[in-house]
């Protein structure tokens, strides 16, 4: 299988002198093309920091991150920006939308940077995504005129606009109730089925149970890896997947 991301011995620290702590303490990780991977772990264990490191959004102190065969540390700021725009998508815990733009404009913003296609084509594509996400009627609203779950879906639509190879999701369902969370997960599953690689951070076992592989972080290190295999809705085995994941997590003694 082709490797999408390879992280080798990643070291990242914050603070100076006595305060200095390794937030990522020699993390090695591989994400394959087409995989749906989740990252779990207690608060402060370094999950978000790992996402920023793997996407090249934040530099690392030592180690190496390769994305699609390119060593990210050798790339310039602008080249990294180009990769983020064209090949990666991001969904954060908060909606991270620009408050001065309306919802449609927020979604098309990354595509408008290059203007490779006609505006009407771009808008058309955005509408299609919004329809799939069930938020088409919000198109012209400002971002203060939508609910949290709706805004999270806006964020997903935005992440999908440039047909990225991989989507990074940092607790996309963290602030949502279980109904909204299920809908979001359904959306992500669709995207995954369409061939997009997904790396997802979550606290929620129900969410992680729907992914193929679970990485467990503890104190800046990957403490363990759980292979769940592809999830198929039709098999109705979600309950048992959840249970075995819970048991495994308990065994990690976090």
């Amino acid at each position, binding site marked *: 299988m082709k490797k999408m991301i390879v992280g080798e011995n990643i070291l990242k620290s914050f603070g100076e002198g006595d305060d200095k702590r390794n937030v990522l303490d020699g993390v090695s990780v591989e994400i394959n093309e087409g995989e749906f991977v989740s990252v779990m772990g207690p608060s402060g264990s370094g999950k978000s920091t790992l996402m920023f490191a793997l996407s090249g959004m*934040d530099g690392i102190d030592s180690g190496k991150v390769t994305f699609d065969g390119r060593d990210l540390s050798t790339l310039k700021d602008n080249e990294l920006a180009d990769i*983020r725009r064209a090949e990666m998508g991001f969904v954060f815990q908060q909606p991270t939308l620009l408050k001065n733009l309306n919802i449609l404009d927020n979604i098309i913003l990354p595509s408008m940077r290059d203007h490779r296609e006609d505006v009407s084509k771009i808008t058309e594509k955005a509408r299609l995504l919004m329809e799939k996400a069930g938020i088409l009627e919000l198109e012209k609203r400002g971002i203060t005129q939508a609910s949290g779950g709706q805004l999270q879906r806006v964020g997903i639509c935005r992440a999908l606009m440039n047909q990225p190879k991989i989507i990074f999701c940092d607790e996309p369902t963290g602030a949502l109730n279980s109904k909204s969370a299920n809908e979001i997960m359904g959306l992500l599953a669709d995207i995954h089925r369409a061939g997009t690689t997904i790396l997802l951070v979550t606290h929620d076992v129900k969410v992680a149970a729907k992914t193929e592989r679970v990485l467990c972080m503890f104190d800046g290190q990957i403490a363990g890896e759980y292979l769940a295999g592809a999830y198929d809705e039709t098999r109705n085995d979600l309950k048992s997947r959840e249970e075995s994941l819970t048991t495994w997590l308990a065994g990690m003694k976090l």
Partner: protein
Amino acid sequence: MYYRIIRNDILRNKAITLTTMVFVAAAAMLVSLAAILIINLSGAIDTLMTRAKTPHFMQMHSGKMDTGQLAAFAAQNGDVAEFQVLEFINVDGARIVFEKSSLADSVQDNGFSVQSEKFDYLLDLDGNMIRVSDGEIYVPICYMQDGSTKVGDTVEVFGREFIVGGFLRDSLMNSLLASSKRFLVSRNDFMGIGELGNVEYLIEFRLKDISALGAFETAYTSAGLDANGPTLTYPLFKTMNAISDGLMIAVILLVSVLVVMIAFMCIRFTLLAKIEEDYREIGVMKAIGLRVSDIKKIYLAKYAAIAAVGSLLGYTLSFVFRDMLLENIRLYMGESENASFALLFGIIGVLLVFLAIMAYVNGVLKRFQKISPAEAVRFGISQEKSAGTRLFRLSRNRLLGTNVFLGIRDVLARKGLYATMLAVLVISAFIIIVPQNLYNTISSKGFIAYMGIGQSDLRVDIQQTDNVSEKAAEIAAAMEADSTISKYVVLVTKTFRVKMEDGSEEQIKVELGDHSIFPIKYAEGGAPATGDEIALSVLNARELDKKVGDGITLTIDGQEKNLTVCGIYSDVTNGGKTAKAVFADPSADIMWSVISAELSAKSLIREKTAEYAERFGFAKVSDIDEYVVQTFGSTINSVRKASQAAVGVALSITILVTLLFMRMLVVKDRYSIAVMKAFGFTNSDITAQFVSRSVFVLLIGIVLGTLLANTLGEALAGVVIASFGASSFEFVVDPLAAYLVCPLLMVVSTLVVTIFGTLDAGRIKISENIKE
């Protein structure tokens, strides 16, 4: 607790706090200076005019004098307190030779007189009446200031040597705008010179009560007394003494208004940014039941602190500059008696600035009322939607690049914030353009036409002599025969009586001849073309209460002649009270004659001036350019310097404010910047967005500034120019400078500063700013 909040806030925004404070200090300093100057100036003028016992009414007269008739009139008129006739001996400038140079090029009518006995004293620099001994001479103070001579030097007049005993203040003729200058010599020396120059008489009155001045003027005129020359009154002397320093004060006041406005803008910008930043906290405070006035107090206290420190600083600074600016007033007018008052008024001025700032802050804080706690807590941002941006959507954008679009859209979406920057830029553009246009206007060749002087090359005055018309004809004949003179015109001035509506009569000087050859600018109407038309100077029109189209009746040779007022013009010559007409009048009673001529080549001006001066010794020949340079040269020069300084000041303001705004915006917008970067916008994209914002605002600013400069600015400049005696004028605009060079300068500096100011955006870390 307040103290801690304020201190933290000030420390966090050091740059903008400091800038605001500097502008407040500058405003306080200027206002306080203006107040101190006004008090000192008016005080000094009063002191000078009181000590010198300035006459209330003065009639200049040349020719035969009937002293008996005058004395009888003075004795009989109940308003007169004192009366005297002074002799003033007009001496050609070339005859007054200082050690370094003579006064040959002076446009002033220089002359000699003795110290008067009753009033109108000439004072020394300590404000005391001068007692001059034989062989000594006291020189008008303006020749001390321009460095012509100094105490102890010798002055040669008609070959006689005098020692400069000191300098004199002349309450009548101190001002450069007064065209005569009196030198003081002893009675014995005066007798010696008397035979060599032309005698002119100053018929002077002091009244028991100055309010009777109007009635007295009428009485004097209707008594038909000697009046062959300009009439001047006490208020006019006062104005002339005040004008040059008054102008400086006006400029200081104007600048201080602008500085106060900029201080306001800085405050507004920081406040709006702060409110936006604190939106959620303010909402929470409201939600937990704090009153708006409680919340306001925190913000008010901060600005009270800034304004108080700024004001104190400004007041202190005004002491540093005070003496420098008072120098001229002290030199020409002496100390003021109420100088201690000035300090008090300075404090009042500073206090006004302080209160204005607090009122303004309070006004801006009104928007606290509008903050809804529910919205603030839920969204943390205000839901105010600005109209206009609704139509301006990215999804509809087909014209502009995305970065340019986002930049412009941000400006439209946050109008309130950018309005502040816009206001500063408009003011800057205004400060650059107006003084420049003013300079272009008053330095342009045509400007003198606004002041009642036709645009010719050469001017020949025949005054204070007999047989004026023969002499004028002699010169005209010479000009006719002179091939280098392309055109010329002879104008003669005669006195006529005007019948007033109430039956009384006034005298009016009318300049007769062809007024179309060297036309002047008319404030209203145009030049007289037919025999029944007359144009009046602004002062005369006001005095006679006439408008264009009104009728006026003159008595000519005992017969009444009805004329129509065809035009009104500004005039700075002959005391400003003149009239122009073309009708023929055979009487020989000419007061003076002026011959204007244009030369075929400008290079000949010097040579021809000298030639005619040599040939016609009885006439005063002057080169118009020289005349303008000497009369207005120093003014033009200072306006030029002021306009250059204005460009510097305005550009610095633009740079400083843009830099501050951009840096603050980067800090404020770091979240949006991080989001955009996360989604693949590069640092140069972000810079491009910021450049689009500032250039967009700047372009609007330049357009508005230019519009404002050409309307409001023109009106303001009109006020300044009116003080030189011209009442209507239009800007002469140098399109290259006004519409290309200056805007370009502003654009380039804004561009550079924006790029420089947004460098920090490149250092914004996505990972640190994206978690809110």
